[in-house]
């Protein structure tokens, strides 16, 4: 059940109707949300419901054990809030390790077993030891990477003492399986979301309207921009595509940059919108990422919930930037490579992660020089330089997307070879074919996004539209609606991040 389908629309209308009817009855509302979330997940493949229940059960139990205090009343669960933990530090660490191993074990088994088995076999073959691995060809349970990380962060937070374990399994179940964000995030933090599950939600007219706007804008980005650009991207990036020229590859790569952004941020907006209509607030997951001028800024604006997760639960525990420059660079590389691998079991994702790591390391090394240079220039030049930096960095981001989108390392090599040779550049080589590349589609489809983001940047408000005068909203919403009706893809194409 994808967001851009009539099935989801019907599902949400029914769930929302019942949700409104059960207002002021928190337990009933939470039970409804849990049941709806299970139905939503099971609709895709009911067999994997067991997996999410298992993950939920393990983390619920581990967190409860981690948070047991001396003097806890076994009947009521009440305890002195600052009492020492019941279990020793060693035992608590063992419980945490059990949680991490079981979560990552499930994720690794379903997502990476074949990848690593194949990789080991290749390595052994290179060493002259022929080995045929038994590949399992497992179906990847949708959303497993997202809910595993979400659930894991909760146990770690409880272990660290940043959070008290929730006593109600139902509430914890809602946190893990909340349907708007279940299959592609954003990866919620328990300390932000669980309090919202535990207290009554107030359905406010303004919030419902803002939620509706987010859903509409998200659908527009997905069905109108991303899905139409997918035609252009898939045309070039097919593995069996006849040799595309440099111009076609460059246009398709720019198109993919817009497609993946609109696809993923569109999903996030719909998720945030649905949640907002039910009285929940998610943090931002995208904050105009293509207006970043350097990799550090980019990762503060792109897929914020993942990058902050990686920062808090991987980069900082590895030592972050506290152990010298060399170790910082290693930590950055390791974090980004693992972040790349999180996206999927393929070498292109590992390469993409490594590329992002290199950008971060390179920027870290060049930063003093850049800042010094910047300080020497007068303020009038700052704005120009800033915009040039944004433009320049966007090219680097797009190069990363090419690595990300290629279906194999071999295809990536061919594409890079095509783009950069022969010199002088692709325009001369591809002048005749530029009109065949779909550049018109790219420009026309990107225009609404550019206009919207320019205003968002200018106003410094990502949700400015619901605050505009009524007639502006009316025209804008009607335009989005007609965009969906006239050129919106109707085949309910899955979101790109569903596969991760």
């Amino acid at each position, binding site marked *: 059940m994808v967001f851009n*389908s*009539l099935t989801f629309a019907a599902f949400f209308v029914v769930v929302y109707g019942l949700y409104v009817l059960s207002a002021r009855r928190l337990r009933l509302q939470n039970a409804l949300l849990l049941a709806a979330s299970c139905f939503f997940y099971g609709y895709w493949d009911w067999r994997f419901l067991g997996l999410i229940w298992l993950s939920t059960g393990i983390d619920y139990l581990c967190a409860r054990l981690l948070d047991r205090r001396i003097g806890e009343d076994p009947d009521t669960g009440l305890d002195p809030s600052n009492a020492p933990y019941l279990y020793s530090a060693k035992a608590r660490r063992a419980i945490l390790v059990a949680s991490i191993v079981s979560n990552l074990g499930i994720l690794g088994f379903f997502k990476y077993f074949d990848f690593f088995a194949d990789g080991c076999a290749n390595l052994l073959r290179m060493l002259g030891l022929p080995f045929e691995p038994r590949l399992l060809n497992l179906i990847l349970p949708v959303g497993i990477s997202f809910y595993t990380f979400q659930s894991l962060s909760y146990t770690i937070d409880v272990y660290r003492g940043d959070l008290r374990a929730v006593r109600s399994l139902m509430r914890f179940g809602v946190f893990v399986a909340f349907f708007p964000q279940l299959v592609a995030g954003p990866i919620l933090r328990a300390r932000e979301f669980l309090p919202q599950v535990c207290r009554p939600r107030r359905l406010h*007219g*303004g919030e*419902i*309207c803002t939620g*509706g*706007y987010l859903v509409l804008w998200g659908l527009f980005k997905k069905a109108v921009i991303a899905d*139409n650009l997918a*035609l*252009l991207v898939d*045309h070039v990036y097919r593995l069996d595509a006849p040799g595309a020229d440099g111009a076609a590859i460059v246009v398709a790569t720019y198109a993919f940059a817009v497609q993946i952004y609109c696809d993923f941020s569109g999903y996030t907006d719909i998720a945030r919108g649905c949640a907002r209509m039910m009285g929940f607030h998610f943090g931002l997951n995208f904050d105009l990422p293509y207006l970043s001028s350097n990799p550090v800024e980019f990762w503060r604006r792109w897929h914020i919930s993942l990058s902050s997760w990686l920062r808090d639960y991987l980069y900082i525990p590895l030592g972050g930037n506290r152990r010298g420059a060399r170790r910082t660079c290693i930590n950055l590389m390791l974090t980004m490579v693992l972040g790349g691998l999180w996206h999927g079991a393929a070498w292109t994702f590992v390469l993409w992660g490594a590329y992002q790591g290199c950008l971060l390391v390179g920027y870290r090394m060049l930063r003093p020089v850049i800042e010094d240079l910047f300080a020497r220039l007068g303020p009038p030049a700052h704005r120009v330089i800033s915009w040039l930096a944004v433009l320049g960095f966007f090219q680097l981001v797009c190069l990363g997307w090419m690595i990300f989108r290629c279906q194999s390392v071999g295809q990536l090599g061919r594409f890079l070879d095509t783009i950069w040779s022969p010199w002088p550049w692709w325009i001369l080589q591809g002048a005749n074919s530029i*009109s*065949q*590349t*779909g*550049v*018109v*589609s790219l420009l*026309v*489809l990107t225009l609404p996004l550019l206009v919207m983001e320019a205003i968002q940047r200018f106003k410094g408000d990502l949700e400015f*539209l*619901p605050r*505009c005068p*009524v*007639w502006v*909203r*009316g*025209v*804008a*919403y*009607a335009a989005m*609606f*007609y965009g969906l*009706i*006239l*050129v919106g893809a*109707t085949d309910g194409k899955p979101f790109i991040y569903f596969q991760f």
Partner: protein
Amino acid sequence: MARLADRLPLGALAAGLVVGLIHVLAGLAYPEPIARDSLRDKVRVLTAGGRPSLLVAGDSRAASQVIPEVLAGVLGVAGSQVVNIGTPAGEPAAAVAAYREFAPRFSDRPIMLLSVGIWSVNDCLHEGVFLGNETLWYLGFIDRWRLTSGAHAIRAIFLPERAWAAGLIRRCWPDEPPDPVTRQIVSGVMPGGMVFGRAPASVGDGGYVGVTEDVTADPEGFARTTRGVANLWYIGARLDGIRWRLFEANLDRLLADGVQVVLLDTPQHPAVLAALEGTSGAEAADRFHRQLVEVCERKGALLLSYDGRVFEGRCPDRLFSDASHVNAAGATLLSERIGRDLRALIDAGKLRLRP
């Protein structure tokens, strides 16, 4: 007041007003269905040199089974007087839409030889390709919902806007976009038809589109399409529902416009009939024929109905290109026969062919 404004989704209401206004304006600008672009272009090209008085219309069977040149020869009229505007998956609604838009390009009270297939009046056939926008345009929301998927039914509410947008695109962008992707996206504005017209095939033959191959060229493909036609069109067919009522309404429209309508029911390959034996499809085929006879009697239209006997003494495998379309050899024979039957009707005073 401020609290009320805060509670009401004013933006959504305003958007609803804008959409409603545009819908009304588009409905006023396009009160009639717009035929698919390929059909409109075909009519434009075929009527550029004169005002034809006999037009063959309908689906691909019309396009591939009736050769205007042969028909004109048998009837003894100029070749430009007979045109074939049949189009693949063209329902009666498409023929009506095309005729009404271009009526001044035809002679007064023309004869329309309208090929009607069982598929075009079968409510159980939900495939989008067999359910054109021209048909959906006439239907209410509930009927659309019954005939097609929910999303399709909802999008069909906005067909006038789609026609409007398609027209605007054509005016602003008269040539086809050069790249296939942009063309595909823009063409989606009017699903079922292309926003950008394609050069009609074989208009030099008066609109006839046929092939010379016979079914022996691809026996496996033939067996597959035979099963497909039997299962999809006949077995489990519902012929007295929404689409039949719409067909009758379209027949009324044509007759009210002064068109001399001759319904054309052409033969299927005997293998289709063999596949239908002992199934509900055989009864559906008989029923379809009976309904055509009855509606013609009731409405005052004429019917030319042919079965396999029209090719008696010849091997059907050599005359059909697939389960339901004849090839050029079959079309020549069939066209001659249709021409003779039309001649007889004209001579009997039941039809009037203007020179």
